């Protein structure tokens, strides 16, 4: 069974961490993955850096710029990950924009993902309609789960459609914003979490954007299955390098 699906069946609130591959140092990717698994993180999103990340705020863009300057590429990432499955069993998702994947070749990219043991992809600028018509069969062939985003403004019929096409979880964007731009959730956001949970979707929801600490993690997972932290973790890496990852994880989810 796909590692993501298996993880979602566990009876706990899931904590996922996003980091940009090749950051802070180009060869940190594997060590960060290992450290996140050791510290009890439930699944990981490995960011594939892009020159023009539209949906991201300054923190993630800056980390991408640095990774690209150090020479990070799709090929480099697959090279770094080639033995990852002999080291970790945690579900791994690659999050990246569509253009680098298109240049690599979608079919070839999916095949490489399967080869190194990637479980799913998040491609923010590949709309569900295009995916469904043109790429779903390729993803399925290589056993990859494609994860879609919804926002507080996504109409109900579109959420239903996304739920139908999805087979894993739904990435619930907490507020209308780019990554790393909110502090704490207001009543309106909590009402949105509740509204979605009451839709009885077949896919569990995992909240992203605006999760940075224990409070926001607890608020987000009151109704959802899990939550994803990105920018706050990148800031931690920026300050501490790849050391003390356990301090960060403990500050979000004390044992």
């Amino acid at each position, binding site marked *: 069974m796909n590692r993501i699906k298996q993880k979602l069946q566990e009876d706990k609130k899931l904590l996922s961490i996003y980091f940009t591959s090749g950051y802070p140092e180009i060869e940190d990717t594997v060590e960060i993955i290992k450290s996140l698994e050791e510290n009890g993180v439930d699944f990981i999103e490995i960011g594939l850096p892009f020159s023009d990340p*539209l949906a991201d705020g300054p923190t993630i863009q800056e980390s991408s710029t640095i990774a690209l300057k150090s020479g990070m590429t799709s090929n480099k990432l697959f090279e770094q990950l080639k033995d990852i499955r002999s080291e970790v069993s945690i579900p791994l998702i690659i999050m990246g*924009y569509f253009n680098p994947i298109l*240049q690599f070749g979608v079919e070839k990219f999916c095949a490489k993902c399967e080869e190194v043991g990637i479980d799913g992809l998040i491609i923010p600028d590949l709309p569900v309609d295009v995916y469904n018509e043109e790429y779903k069969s390729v993803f399925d062939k290589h056993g990859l789960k494609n994860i879609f985003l919804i926002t507080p403004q996504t*109409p109900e019929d579109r959420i239903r459609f996304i739920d139908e096409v999805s087979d894993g979880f739904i990435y619930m964007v907490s507020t209308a914003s*780019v990554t790393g731009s909110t502090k704490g959730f207001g009543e309106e956001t909590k009402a949105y979490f509740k509204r979605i949970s009451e839709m009885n979707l077949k896919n569990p929801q995992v909240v992203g954007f605006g999760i940075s600490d224990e409070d926001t993690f607890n608020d987000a997972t009151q109704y959802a299955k899990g939550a994803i932290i990105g920018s706050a973790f990148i800031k931690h890496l920026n300050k501490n390098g790849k050391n003390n990852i356990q301090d960060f994880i403990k500050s979000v989810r004390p044992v």
Partner: protein
Amino acid sequence: MTYQADEKGYYGEFGGAFIPEMLYPNVEELRRQYLDIMKENSFQKEFKALLKDYVGRPTPLYYAERFSKKYNTKVYLKREDLCHTGAHKVNNTIGQILMAKRLGKNRIIAETGAGQHGVATATVCALMGIECIVYMGEIDIERQAPNVARMKMLGAKVVPAKSGSKTLKDATNEAIRDWINNPVDTHYIIGSVVGPHPYPDMVARFQAVISEEIKTQLKEKENRENPDYVVACVGGGSNAAGAYFHYLDNPEVGIIAVEAAGKGIYTGESAATSALGKEGIIHGSKTLLMQTDDGQITEPYSISAGLDYPGVGPMHAHLFRSGRGEFISITDDAAMKAGLELAKLEGIIPAIESSHALAIFEDRKFKEDDVVVVNLSGRGDKDLNTYIDYFDL
């Protein structure tokens, strides 16, 4: 076969809407309504009245006699340089501000490179009394101080884009992020035929007034609606889209697109997207763009700030790929010389963007009785410093 956008915003294999889900409601709202709104009588009436009384349309179609004589063919100049604010950009911003009002938006955002589109947007926002925020690369803000001052005089807030390479593509990224953060009250006025569907088609339709007027004016002057060729410079490609629009599906009219070769196509300092670009996604559209093998978008170069965009609109990508359009690239040098030549022969100082279109006559020969319309997209006032430095005037 048509060279217009289909229902899903595709020109052949190019176009579409590759946008993050956060933008879906905004773009979808626009997509569902733009054609209906544009068809409304009240909209057309208001749009046309403003183009006439505020922009100063129709702009003349001028027979450039001395220039024609030099190149031994018949050259007409479509004088978009005489539009209010100095370029064709205002045709689109007038259209989009009226669109924004009908969609109930009370906040306008825009991106700008050299500042021409920013000024045209700030102008219509002042006209309508609507809040205006213009994103501009930090480097461009330094290079284009007079346009920054103009936008400020017009009441716009100019926000520096500090990410990435700090130029036009980054200003566009910042504007898109603003739109993601403000999904309800804000309309994004994109300045060219780029971005997700419906933008390329909507902007082309607002600029289509250019070729509509050419048809009428050419009928008066030459007793024919169709020239043999229509020539325009292409950065993102909005003036070209407007100049070609009514001729796209008429094979009798040759379409010539002129790109900026910068210091030479293969020098690494160029913006000749058709020669250097590969298919990919930029700012929500599948098109030709300049990028690395790894799919990272690269920074183009041209002496003309209006042409240094790493992509072209999907309409132009299709015109190139299908062979419908003839693509020529012109170096900085050749463009500057052509600009100076037009000044001396016709008493018109063109924008450096438009100078690229004029420079093709040196090598691209036409028949003596060919009628060639060149879209003179803007005037050269904004480029005086560049002309002064270049020719040591």
